[in-house]
């Protein structure tokens, strides 16, 4: 083995080590104990029963996996996947805003070329986006694969400071030791008390389980916590119940018949012990979760027999019990598929729901809490 030159004194390597170790200690983050930004105080929604729906602008044959957010100026913004087919090289992430005159002309905001250009790595395809407005910053997290299937997904992050007109080059989030693969995000982050964000995600290589990524206010990863579950689980959807407690509902990727799986933290996200699955069916399909203005929780998902219907459930007791509320859409013909729901609470108290409509487009529905209780629109 090579040796250091004889001219180098023997005390120099340990001295270098001590200096570097001191610098590393100085650099290592030492964040405060984690806490969620407490949700607003519950208040009854006074909006009358209303329901309306519309299709998002069609940009390709295949469209899926919408993410919704509300911009500081009140406009709704959506990002979704579109291309010739799922996993195809031409799949990209498209973006549109809804103003008074309806949805704007969609813009392509990420694809394999732009991702490869930012990360200096080969990219074969991009996957599910997560859009989130945080003040004047508009975050976009999305997946990309280089070689291999979905299990090799890498998480990327980009930011826009002009409401989505232009985006900085994406960076890869270092979330896994094995070539940084197999991290997926699909549901929106939660704001944390320290100004950072908590991003729900899942890992799907060797083991399949939910994960919780704690980000500092400047985007640095501070912690990654596993959501253990004896059942394979995907795509945690998380709502904060107070500063320390949060509820995560997860897609069941285990044997059928599946149920919505659950994890609850009571220490700001440091631990997510498993709890008994909900008596709500889940046919290994994505779900969405939202805390309403009234403080009740709203869950969107599919029934046991598959994705031919999209249903809503309500909980008035922080997720302990759930009651079926509404069927948003259902059909029995072979091509029916109403899936990949995304929920957002508008600042006016209306609920926005976007979902994949027959894999041909994205439907956007807007309704009030009164409609959920059976009120006629």
């Amino acid at each position, binding site marked *: 083995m090579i040796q250091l030159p004889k001219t180098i004194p023997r005390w120099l390597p340990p001295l270098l080590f001590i200096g570097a170790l001191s610098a*590393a200690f100085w650099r290592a983050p030492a964040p405060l104990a984690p806490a969620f930004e407490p949700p607003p105080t519950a208040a009854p929604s006074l909006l009358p029963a209303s329901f309306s729906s519309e299709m998002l602008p069609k940009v390709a044959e295949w469209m899926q996996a919408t993410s919704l957010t509300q911009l500081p100026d009140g406009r709704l913004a959506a990002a979704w996947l579109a291309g010739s087919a799922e996993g195809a090289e031409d799949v990209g992430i498209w973006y549109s805003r809804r103003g008074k005159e309806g949805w704007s002309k969609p813009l392509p905001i990420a694809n394999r070329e732009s991702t490869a250009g930012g990360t200096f790595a080969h990219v074969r395809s991009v996957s599910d986006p997560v859009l989130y407005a945080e003040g004047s910053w508009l975050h976009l997290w999305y997946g990309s694969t280089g070689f291999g299937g979905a299990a090799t997904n890498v998480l990327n992050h980009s930011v826009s400071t002009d409401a989505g007109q232009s985006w900085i080059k994406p960076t890869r989030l270092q979330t896994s030791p094995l070539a940084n693969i197999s991290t997926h995000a699909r549901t929106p982050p939660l704001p944390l008390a320290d100004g950072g964000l908590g991003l729900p995600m899942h890992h799907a290589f060797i083991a399949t389980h939910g994960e919780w990524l704690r980000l500092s206010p400047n985007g640095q990863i501070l912690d990654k916590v596993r959501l253990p579950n004896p059942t394979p689980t995907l795509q945690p959807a998380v709502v904060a119940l107070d500063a320390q407690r949060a509820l995560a509902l997860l897609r069941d990727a285990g044997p059928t018949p599946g149920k919505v799986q659950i994890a609850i933290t009571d220490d700001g996200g440091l631990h997510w012990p498993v709890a008994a699955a909900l008596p709500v069916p889940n046919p290994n399909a994505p779900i969405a979760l939202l805390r309403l203005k009234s403080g009740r929780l709203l869950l969107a998902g599919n029934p046991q027999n598959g994705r031919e219907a999209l249903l809503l459930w309500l909980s008035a007791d922080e997720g302990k019990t759930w009651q079926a509320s509404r069927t948003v859409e259902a059909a029995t013909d072979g091509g029916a598929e109403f899936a990949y729901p995304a929920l957002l609470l508008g600042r006016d108290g209306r609920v926005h729901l976007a979902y994949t409509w027959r894999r041909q487009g994205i439907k956007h529905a807007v309704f009030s809490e009164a409609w959920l209780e059976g009120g006629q629109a």
Partner: protein
Amino acid sequence: MNAVAAYGLLAHGLIFGAIAALLPLGELRQRAALIATATALLAGIAPVMHATFGTPSLTLLQLALLQLANKSPSPLTYRPALGLLLFAALFYPMALGWGGFDPYALGYQPWPLLAALLPLAAALWWCRQDVWLTLLAVDLAGYATGVFANLWDVLLDPLLLLLALIVVSRQAVLRLIAARIR
């Protein structure tokens, strides 16, 4: 351009050059390494390696630089390679979901890990492994730059383990051949 992406691309170019420097090309070895590095960066080999193996660790980059600088034999001899493989045999399955403990997550707030490196460094110094102690010091200095989010990514990576596996396998094959000749 972000720092970690630029580092990953450049490091993979140099690693590819170091691999070329392993070829028995005599006097042409250095030129071949230079051409291989440039080819990797310009012809898209480095981005493919970056996508396949992820961001290389500083440990691997330093070993590649030693190879390029013709400082051989490599410090990654049989015993360090075997130790690395044994550690990785536990670390990677746990980090990828085997059991409830995720050792990779320790690397985001690595105070306990950094403290654990002190006795390791003392052992390296005691055993006169000054080169490895220097490599470790450069790793930590690299972490202190803030380019890496996780301390583990500075220390090891899958390509380094592949290299360690080759070193260990080669030694095992040589021992087998020697035993048969006897």
